[in-house]
């Protein structure tokens, strides 16, 4: 086995890019701020120094053209890793992504391929407000030809990013801001995690919980607590939301007969809806109770501290939802899984706003 290290999610990302650049001269890394002193929350630190200005560079605030430039370069042997500090900024580049990257392989009869990786950072922060907080993964998952990855752990972040960079297709690589400081065991060097495999985090006969990205952290807290109450959950971390590992979900629901899907996006039209629809269509006979979901409300994130209190889903909310699905009492949850305070930071180390 490879040597491992305990590092942060941000460091894991940095290592994945570094390893990829070591392995392949065609890998380049760019985006607003990738060479600045903060290095995108630490995820690009040191890369410019190691690989030079030609392969690692800052860019003009021109999200649309820069996406097209990544695509063009990728048609001739370059493997660009482009970063956006907020998913919201990438909305400027939907033409290049959807009318371009996602379709070139198909529409030119398999002669072109677009091995680009687009890192998008999203998720709640500290007063981020309506235009700095959107979790729009559902959009990307709707577009044929894209792959979409949302890793939760440092281990997965590195292994999935390496797979994304060397995948022949455009990959949207989504990092939740609250995960960057989380730590975990990560192998040194190169390893790959397939881009279409979910991870079963815990097994239990009572209910299937399907989750993604930061919500898996909250779900883990919830399911760990419920274990002490003799409630056993199959917790599945999707890791990839396009393609989705349906087999993993279906196998679990066949066993448990119950389903709760967690989603960090707006409720209506979310990935969670797609999961519920498929399970309802295909495993209708196996379900013991109606499937359900928890997602963000169909409202923008408001900015004020006072207004985000009930906006996001916490471990306690999840535990309560599970108990209500299973029709068992929910006492003690508030004691053991209280709402975090302050509710707008992942921990003491987090210095707002970003």
């Amino acid at each position, binding site marked *: 086995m490879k040597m491992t290290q305990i590092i942060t999610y941000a460091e894991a990302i940095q290592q994945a890019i570094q390893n990829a650049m070591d392995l392949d001269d065609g890998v380049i890394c760019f985006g607003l701020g990738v060479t600045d002193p903060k290095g995108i929350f630490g995820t690009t630190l040191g890369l410019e120094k190691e690989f030079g200005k030609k392969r690692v560079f800052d860019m003009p605030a021109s999200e649309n053209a820069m996406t097209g430039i990544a695509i063009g370069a990728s048609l001739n042997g370059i493997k660009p890793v482009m970063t956006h500090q907020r998913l919201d900024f990438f909305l400027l580049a939907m033409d290049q992504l959807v009318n371009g990257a996602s379709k070139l392989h198909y529409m030119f009869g398999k002669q072109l391929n677009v091995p680009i990786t687009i890192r998008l950072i999203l998720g709640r922060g500290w007063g981020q*407000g309506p*235009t700095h907080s959107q979790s729009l993964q559902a959009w990307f998952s709707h577009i044929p030809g894209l792959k979409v990855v949302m890793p939760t752990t440092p281990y997965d972040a590195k292994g999935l990013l390496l797979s994304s960079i060397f995948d022949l297709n455009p990959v949207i690589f989504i990092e939740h801001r609250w995960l960057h400081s989380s730590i975990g065991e990560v192998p040194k060097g190169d390893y790959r995690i397939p881009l279409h495999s979910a991870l079963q985090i815990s097994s239990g006969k009572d209910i299937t919980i399907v989750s993604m990205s930061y919500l898996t952290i909250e779900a883990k807290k919830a399911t760990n607590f419920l274990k002490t109450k003799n409630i056993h959950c199959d917790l599945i971390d999707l890791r990839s939301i396009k393609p989705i590992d349906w087999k993993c979900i279906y196998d679990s629901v066949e066993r448990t007969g119950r389903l709760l899907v967690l989603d960090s996006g707006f409720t209506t039209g979310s990935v969670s809806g797609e999961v519920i629809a498929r399970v309802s269509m295909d495993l209708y006979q196996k379900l013991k109770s109606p499937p359900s979901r928890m997602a963000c409300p169909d*409202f923008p994130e408001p900015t*004020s501290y006072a207004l985000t209190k*009930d906006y996001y889903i916490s471990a306690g909310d999840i535990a309560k939802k599970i108990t209500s699905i299973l029709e068992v009492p929910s006492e003690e949850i508030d004691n053991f899984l209280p709402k975090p305070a302050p509710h707008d930071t992942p921990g003491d180390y987090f210095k707002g706003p970003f």
Partner: protein
Amino acid sequence: MKQDLILNLYRIMKRIRLVEEEIALQYPKWEMRCPTHLSIGQEAVAAALSMCIRKDDFAVSTHRGHAHYLAKGGSLKSMIAEIYGKSTGCSRGKGGSMHLIDKDVGFMGTSAIVGNSIPIGVGLALSAHLNFTDQISCVFLGDGATEEGVFYESVNFAVLKNLPVIFICENNLYSVYSPLEVRQPKGRKISKMVESIGATSLSGDGNDVTNCYRIFRNSVNSVRSGLGPYFIEFFTYRYKEHCGHEYDNNLGYRSVAEFETWKKRDPIELCKKQLLETDLSLIRKLDKIDQIIKEEISDAFLFAQNSPFPEPQEAFSGLYADS
């Protein structure tokens, strides 16, 4: 230039400065929990414009919008309350520092997406044109925003339709930590470039408030009289970090020497010097001005701090406008 006028320019700049210094002071109590971009060092442009436009003119701005909001006449109390996330805030707490508005004075909002408010400002100018009024629309933007395609598209349309809009670009040399040289070609003159798109264009010292004033006097007149859009690039400098209350020269993305050079040309100090050179006795008047401003600020902070937070369920209302 009349002394009164210069005194007014001084007052407006100083008010913006003191407001932002108070924000910087209070910020590390972490009660203003939203991204906050200070304009300290860049007050002259906003102040000068303030004296040249009317209340019913429009303005839109960016993430760095406090100065523009205040200069346009936006309510100080509502702004501070907004940064504190209070229900008395100018956006009822929904927006924070990056989403300021005061419709009563034509300040029609700021955007946290670079370049995003530029076409909004052009659209406001279009509305004036369609409504046959002589309002003008002022669009504040940074040097970084000129890299967005939407900037160029917006100027093209404004020129095409000869709209009453004035683009005010505060070139402070940086976009976050990125200097111009990693974003724009060497030797780029933004104003020259925009001239070739078809707008009347100028560049000027953005730290010399009387110079800014003269430029605006002419350009606003020209725009209001129907001669079409104007673009003005002002060179200026922010002192504090891109976002937040601290100085960040320690990060090394810009040199201390550069910082010091600009500080020596502080717009408020320059203006003060100019005033005192003509009349040393003005010092007492200036002190008085400062005093009044400080009282106003302290009131505004008290107001904001004492204001109630919105109810959590307010988050789940106000999505659609009803007739």
